C-alpha cells in the first residue's frame, strides 16, 4: 500500500488535509466516525480506477477548525468549501457515517456539486421507534464492537502508527470524536429528513447488516426520503458481515458496490 499525496486546503482560516491517490475520474470520500487517521485498503481499491480525493472534515485527523462551527449551516458551508477547494465540485461523492450526512447535504443543497452519490450508513436521521445508538456513551471495551462488526478493525484504525507522538495522537483521536459530536450531538438528527427529497443525484445506499449504531432499516428511510423508495435512481445494498463502518469490515465488497454504481 503506497502513500497518498498530501496537500492542505484552508477552511475558515484552518488547515484541512486532502489525501489524493490513483488515476481516472475523480471520486471524493468523506470518512465516517474517527475520520482517516491512516490510509485504507478500501481507498486503495477505489484508487485502482479512480482519482480518490479524501478531504478531512474540520477537526478530523489532519484538520482543525471545528471549534469555529456552531450551527449546522456553519458545518454545511465548511464542507462545501472543502469540496470546492479539494477540486471535487461536480465529481462522484462517497460519504460514510458522519461524512455520509454531509455528502447527502451537498447533493441536496448544491445539486451541481455531486454527480453521483454513494452513502454508507449515513448519520442525519433519528427514528423514535428504532433509536440510533449513542457513539459518545460507550464503555472503552465496548466501543470497537459498536463501530465495526470486527472490533479489531476499529482498533487498527485508531492505533498509533510507529513514530506517532504519544501525547498528540490520542488528543487527535479525541478531537475527531469531538468534531463529530459538535455536529451531531446528541441524537445525530440534523433535520436532514426535510432535505433528502432535494437529492437528484443517482444514489446508492450501503448499510452493514450488523450496524450496531444506526439500524440497517434506516437504509429504507433514506431511500424513501430521497426518491419515495427504492427505484432506478436510488438503490440499497445491505453488506453482509459489516458493522457501522462497513468500509473497514468489508472493504472489497463495499468498494465493488461503489465502483459498479459509478461505472
Amino acid at each position, binding site marked *: 500500500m503506497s502513500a497518498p499525496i498530501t496537500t492542505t486546503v484552508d477552511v475558515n482560516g484552518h488547515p484541512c488535509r486532502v489525501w489524493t491517490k490513483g488515476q481516472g475520474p475523480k471520486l471524493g470520500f468523506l470518512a465516517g466516525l474517527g475520520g482517516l487517521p491512516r490510509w485504507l485498503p478500501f481507498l486503495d481499491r477505489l484508487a485502482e480506477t479512480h482519482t480518490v480525493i479524501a478531504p478531512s472534515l474540520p477537526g478530523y485527523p489532519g484538520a482543525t477548525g471545528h471549534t469555529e462551527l456552531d450551527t449546522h449551516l456553519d458545518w454545511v458551508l465548511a464542507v462545501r468549501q472543502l469540496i470546492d477547494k479539494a477540486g471535487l465540485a461536480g465529481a462522484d461523492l462517497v460519504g460514510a457515517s458522519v461524512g455520509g450526512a454531509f455528502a447527502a447535504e451537498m447533493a441536496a443543497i448544491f445539486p451541481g456539486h455531486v454527480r453521483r452519490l454513494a452513502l454508507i450508513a449515513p448519520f442525519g436521521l433519528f427514528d423514535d421507534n428504532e433509536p440510533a445508538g449513542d457513539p459518545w456513551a*460507550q464503555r*472503552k471495551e465496548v466501543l470497537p464492537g459498536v463501530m465495526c462488526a470486527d472490533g479489531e478493525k476499529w482498533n487498527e484504525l485508531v492505533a498509533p502508527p510507529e513514530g506517532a507522538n504519544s501525547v498528540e495522537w490520542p488528543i487527535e483521536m479525541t478531537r475527531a470524536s469531538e468534531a463529530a459530536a459538535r455536529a451531531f450531538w446528541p441524537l445525530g438528527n440534523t433535520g436532514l429528513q426535510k432535505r433528502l427529497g432535494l437529492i437528484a443525484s443517482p444514489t446508492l445506499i450501503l448499510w452493514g447488516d450488523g450496524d450496531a449504531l444506526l439500524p440497517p432499516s434506516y437504509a429504507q428511510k433514506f431511500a424513501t426520503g430521497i426518491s419515495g423508495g427504492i427505484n432506478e435512481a436510488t438503490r440499497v445494498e445491505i453488506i453482509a458481515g459489516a458493522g457501522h463502518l462497513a468500509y473497514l469490515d468489508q472493504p472489497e465488497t463495499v468498494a465493488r458496490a461503489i465502483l459498479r454504481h459509478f461505472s
Partner: protein
Amino acid sequence: MKLMWFHLMPYTELPEDFNKKHPSVWVDIHSSLFDPKRAHHMYNDFMDELEYAAELGYDAVCVNEHHSNGYGLMPSPNLIASSLARRTTDTALCVMGNSLALYNPPTRVAEEFAMIDCISGGRRIAGFPVGSPMDPCYAYGQNPSLLRERYLEAHDLVKKAWTEKDTFAFNGRYNQQRYVNIWPRPIQNDPHPPIWIPGGGSIETWRWCAEMDYVYCYLSYYGYKAGLATMQGFWNEMEKLGKDRNPYRAGFLQFVGVAESRQQALDLYSEPAEYFYGRCLHIDPKFATPPGYVTEATQRSGIQGMMQKAANVANPATKAALKATNMKDIVDGGYVLIGSPDEVVEQIRHVGTSLNVGNLMLLLQYGNMSKDTTKYNTRLFAEKVMPKVKDLFADWEHKWWPKPMAKSQRAAIPAFRPQTVAAE
C-alpha cells in the same frame, strides 16, 4: 474559618443489590427505584436538617444541582434555597448550582438568584458550576464541544444582567436577547453577589477564578488526602499569578462523622458512608468522557502526567471505579473524617491548614444516614468542634462572603406554626 453545612440530598433507599442489578446511579437510573411518597419524607427530612444546621450556627447552608441522579435529588437547588431563605435568618445561602449552560436564556439564572437574594436579605452565594459530564451532556443533552464556551458566555450575560443599570441587548455567539433587564435586582450590588466556582483540577479554571476574583471550590468526594495535590496546584498557580494566599479564595468539601468516641463514630457512620461510596457512586463509566468536555490543554497536561492525579480525582466516574467502598479504606483514605470531637477538631485543623482552605463545606449527612443520626452529627460538630476551629484564619479578611442587609432592616419572618386540623 467558615463552616458550611452541605446537603447532596441522596435518595436513601437504593436497594442493597443496586450495584449488581443496575448499571448506573446517574443518567439512566431506573424510575422503578423512585418512590415519590418516600421522597416526600426524604425532602422534608433533608430540609429539616438544613434548617437545623442554620439554627445551630453554621455559617452557611449549601445545596447543589444534579439531574437524573440517585444521590442528588435537587434538579433545582433554587427551589430549596428559596424555602431556606424564609426559614433561616442569618445563615448564608450557598447555592453550588446553577449550571449556567443549561438555561436558555441564562437570564433566568440571574433572575432567580436575584429573587433569592432579595427574599433572604442579601445572604446568597452564587455558585456557577460547568457541571459533571453526566448532568449537562447526558441528562440535559448539551453538546460537550460547546459546553464551556456556552458556560462562559452565560456567565458574562448573568453578570451583566446583575450589574448593568439600563436595559441592554446581549449579542452573544450562543445567546441573543434584545432586551435584558432583570426585575428583581440583587441586594448584593457592590458589585454583585459573591461568585464561587466549583471545579475539577484544571489550570484554566484556576486562572479564570484568579482573573475574575472568584472563590474556587474543589468539591471532591474523596477527602483531604486525595485533594491535597489539587489544592497545592491551585495555590502554586495563585502564587505564579501574584495572588495572595488568602484561604478564603478556596472552598473544599469534606465528609465528617463525629461521635463520643472513634468506635461510636464507626458504629454510627459506617453504614451511611458505605452506602454512599458503594451505591451512590456507582456510575457507568460510559458517561465519564463526552468528547470535548475536557479541553485539549487539560488533556495534554493530563497525558503528560503533570495533572494526572488531579484530573483523575476530578472525574467522579473514573474515580469511583477505583475507589474504596468499605469503611476502613474510606477512613484510611481520608474520604470521611471520623472520631471523637477532639479527634475531629485536630483533623479539621489539619485539613484547613494543609490545604489552606478557609471555606470548609461539610457533609454531615451522606448516603442513607437517618435524620436522627444526621442531627446528632450536626449538633455535636456545632457544639464541640466548631468552637475549636472557628479561629483558624482569623487574620485574613473574607472578601467573598455575602453582605446582607443589616438585621434591623430585614423583614420579620413570622415563626412557623403548623396548623392543627380541627376535627369535623
